[in-house]
């Protein structure tokens, strides 16, 4: 690429142009995909009973929107947010405890690795027995999936805090609590948000997995139900809705991250 010196207005113009280009291509890809899907379904190239089609999904969406779709969405979103919040808060406290005790951290390390690689969904039946068949089990599932990752990521972040900064506050006589509040915590705000971005997705996975197993409402329930009665339009529509929900929640966390990082670094 050629390096050219731009004037301020040219430079801004160029950035704006690029942004518009990226967005237009993204929209074009989406439109092409949907159109291709619809055409293929209409022309009988694919079996629209099995893969559905955009128009069929819109139809079922309108039909369901009049019924109880909103309730299902709210259930899933609420469960995800509760699971996410619990996962982050508990993960934060555990990681903090592990920072305060290097001994505990070393003891826990192999257990965390095993728990992290373990497919938590396999615990599903156990969780149902423990917390009963209902929202409790679903939220537990979401926490089980997101908690260990949070602990590992935050703990790693805490331990990787710039040692020069820690030495500096120690030289003023700061104890562990003060070092944590004044240095470790603010330094790790970006790490916290990074793990929240991963977590919000994982919580949704946990909730859907939970809803597959036990539930009377939620998008996971809707997918299982529709699959059983071969309403593939409803399955596909729910999956796409899930995609939207995941995207919106991720964007929200990402937006918060940008604000927080700006507040921390003042650049």
């Amino acid at each position, binding site marked *: 690429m050629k390096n050219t010196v731009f004037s301020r207005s040219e430079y801004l113009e160029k950035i704006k142009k690029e942004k518009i280009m990226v967005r237009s291509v993204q929209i074009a890809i989406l439109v092409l995909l949907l159109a291709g899907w619809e055409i293929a379904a209409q022309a009988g190239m694919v079996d629209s009973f099995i893969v559905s089609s955009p128009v069929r999904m819109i139809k079922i969406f309108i039909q369901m929107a009049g019924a109880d779709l909103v309730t299902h969405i709210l259930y899933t979103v609420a469960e995800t947010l509760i699971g996410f919040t619990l996962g982050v808060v508990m993960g934060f406290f555990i990681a903090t405890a592990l920072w305060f005790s290097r001994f505990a951290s070393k003891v826990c390390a192999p257990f965390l690795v095993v728990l992290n690689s373990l497919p938590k969904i396999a615990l599903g039946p156990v969780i149902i027995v423990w917390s009963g068949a209902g929202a409790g089990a679903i939220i537990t599932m979401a926490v089980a999936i997101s908690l260990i990752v949070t602990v590992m990521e935050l703990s790693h972040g805490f331990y990787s805090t710039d040692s020069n900064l820690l030495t500096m506050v120690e030289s003023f006589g*700061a104890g562990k609590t003060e070092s944590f509040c004044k240095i470790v915590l*603010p330094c790790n705000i970006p790490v916290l948000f990074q793990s929240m971005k991963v977590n919000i997705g994982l919580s949704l996975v946990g909730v859907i997995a939970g809803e597959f197993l036990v539930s009377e409402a939620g998008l996971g329930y809707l997918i299982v139900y529709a699959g059983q009665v071969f309403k593939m339009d409803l399955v596909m529509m729910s999956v796409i809705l899930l995609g939207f929900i995941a995207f919106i929640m991720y964007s929200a966390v990402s937006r918060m991250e940008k604000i927080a990082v700006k507040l921390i670094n003042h650049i």
Partner: protein
Amino acid sequence: MENIKLSYQTMTGETQAIKDISFTVEAGDFIAIVGPSGCGKSTLLSCVAGLTQPTSGQVIINGKKVDSINRYTGYMMQTDNLLPWRTIYSNVLLGLEIQKKLTEENIAYAEHLLQKYGLWSFRDSYPSALSGGMRQRVSLIRTLAVKPDLLLLDEAFSALDYQTRLNVSRDVYSILRSEKKTMLMVTHDIPEAVSLCDRVLVLSQRPAVIAADIRCDFGPGRDPVAVRNTQLYHTYFDRVWKEMAE
């Protein structure tokens, strides 16, 4: 008046970093420790700060044995370690905050230092807006705000570019002189050691002992940058250089 004595020996694990080092620093002295890299200069300094415990031997400041972080010393590192989320003003008050000494008098002293050394107008800025030299000065004021008697500088200027380095070392020199502080610095830069300090201690290769103790006397009112052109400076430089080479 304070009377700082320091005797010290250490053996770090299997490698004996410092064999046997004893020296005394008088109040108001500026002393530099130079030596080959890896000879334990920085460890020596962190022992004085109480951040590290020597394997054997002891550090005595103002008649008291140093066994933990102490209030007599201020410690400065290569990096300025300013916290990006705090303004210059609240960065400067960090030490006082940690030591729970945010009294009106101490705050006034910190503000006075900011004013005196030309950083008052930046008090509400964040560190990212300041140049490297200014940041290092803020870092010095943060250290001075807790009123230490003895300043420990661990390669404090080596992250700065050459010109800034000269300016900042001159600033630090005059600030510490006018605040009547005692300074113990570790550096690998012989010109810096000779031009700033009254005494230069040369450490030997590991296991380190003091190979030479060279007094650098330029008379009163020295300017650490201007002395670099004097004949005396070259004489001292050569002596330190020869001692290090041996």
